[in-house]
């Protein structure tokens, strides 16, 4: 069971979207993330850099023929942190819904 835990690093909108994608796949290419987010290279680099520093994402540039592509993969710690963050968001929403229900107000 994932422990709900709010994560400031993940919560920033662009980083949340990056994590949402990376948690659902094995790895994604830099260009795919950039197109999906609709941001400039520099913006994506900055956010990926923050996730790399936090230990949530690793970047890989496999060498071979043709253009070198950068692939981003979420680490185990990243998946755990993202799962905790999602659980916390769900808990906030559930608590608010329960708080506003007629039953909880004693109606």
């Amino acid at each position: 069971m994932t422990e709900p835990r709010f994560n400031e690093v993940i919560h920033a909108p662009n980083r949340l979207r990056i994590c949402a994608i990376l948690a659902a796949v094995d790895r994604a290419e830099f260009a795919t993330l950039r197109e999906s987010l609709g941001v400039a290279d520099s913006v994506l680099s900055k956010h990926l850099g923050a996730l790399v520093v936090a230990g949530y994402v690793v970047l890989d540039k496999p060498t071979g023929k043709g253009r070198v592509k950068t692939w981003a993969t979420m680490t185990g710690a990243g998946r755990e942190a993202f799962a905790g963050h999602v659980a916390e968001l769900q808990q906030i929403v559930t608590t608010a819904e329960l708080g506003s229900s007629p039953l909880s107000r004693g109606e």
Partner: protein
Amino acid sequence: MENHSSDDARRSLETIGASRQEIAGRMTRPRWYYPVMGVLMAQLVLVYGLYEELRMLSLVLWLIGAFWLPRLYVARTGVVGRFPATLRSGLVWTLFLLGLLIPMGVTVLRDDLSVGVVVVLALTSLISTIVIGQTLDVAYRADVCRDKELP
């Protein structure tokens, strides 16, 4: 710690859902993907059962396809999926493999098959690859779109 409102949390969850929907849409395999895979499998079954002298050529053709098709797909989408991630997609994946292996296995193990039976097995291989392959694609994208965090 900063207090986060339920509206903010709800918006964040919607953002996660929308991002996953978007990436799942990108992961749709091209229309020709499974028909090509099916033809590769069917020709392997057909040639193995009927034309012994062409077996090596058929196998080489199949290997080239099996090597390039997934790579072409990854290059096109820029995503490598985590699959299978649920019991449902695992079952579809198993069914897909059985659809590939059973016709080929019967052809390899039985050397007394009539032309008609080999043709039926090849057609079974072609159709099952296309039909179950497309079901697999749907299951694949459903895994990506799941609301909860993947295990």
